């Protein structure tokens, strides 16, 4: 059975789904948040902790995100670094064909680990 939780702040919606095999966090809409860390980081942090305890991979899916300000990437960078230095498996997914996503998210490749425990994947 899959459980889904939704979190909404202004025009940004974050959906968290756990199907027992993996934890998936999907971003929808547009993020103009002034302090996105206050909203986004606790969600990502909780998901990562749950995934580590359940030995599951976290998928962070940005493909349905239409716009984000530069501050929105900050909590993502911090959660990737936390996982990279500690435990957990994270796959960041973005839409390769969407130019702004390709430019913004492909740069996160610097956090990818050789064993692909942390991976950044451009998808169609």
């Amino acid at each position, binding site marked *: 059975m899959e459980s889904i939780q939704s979190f909404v702040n202004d025009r940004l919606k974050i959906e968290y789904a756990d199907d027992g095999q993996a934890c998936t966090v999907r971003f929808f809409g547009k993020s103009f948040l002034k302090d996105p860390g206050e909203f986004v980081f606790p969600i990502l942090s909780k998901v990562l902790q749950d995934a580590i305890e359940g030995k599951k991979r976290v998928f962070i899916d940005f493909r349905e995100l239409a716009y984000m300000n530069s501050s929105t990437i900050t909590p993502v960078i*911090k959660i990737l670094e936390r996982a990279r230095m500690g435990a957990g498996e994270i796959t960041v997914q973005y839409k390769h064909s969407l130019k702004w996503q390709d430019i913004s998210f492909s740069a996160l490749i610097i956090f990818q680990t050789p064993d692909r425990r942390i991976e950044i994947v451009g998808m169609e």
Partner: protein
Amino acid sequence: MDSRSREFELRVASDWGKMGSVNEAILAFLESCGLAGELADRYTMVACELTENGIKYGNFEKTGASVSVKVKVDRRGIFVEVTNPIGAGTHDYLRELDRTIQWVRGFQDPFEAYIERMQAISRESIEVDRSGLGLVRITYEGRAALDFYVEDDSTLSVSAVSEL
């Protein structure tokens, strides 16, 4: 694209909640100039990042004070200028702005500056919420040259210029 020069100006109150409307208005203007989706997205981002800085660091103590956002499109390129009132408390930001623009100019490829800034963010504590990525993103993703000037010690104008 339309061969004529087109200009657009917005006055934005010091209200972060207006950023969604600012984004829509600038995107609509750029699309009306005939810019394709990818270019319209790119320069909307440039204008929005500068507007966010204007709201965040401006001084709005005077009644009616606002942020002015100007976007000009012609055959040569796109010019975005955001002007906001400043006060004594803004001087630290001006120094930081100057330092950041000079720092970004020091990189042959703005991608390197973007990567370096992301690495710095990853080393900062969770409590540090300021990304400092906006200006770097404008030069990297927006492929724009940044500049700024202060007029009469009371307004700050930051511009981003991109060739089409």
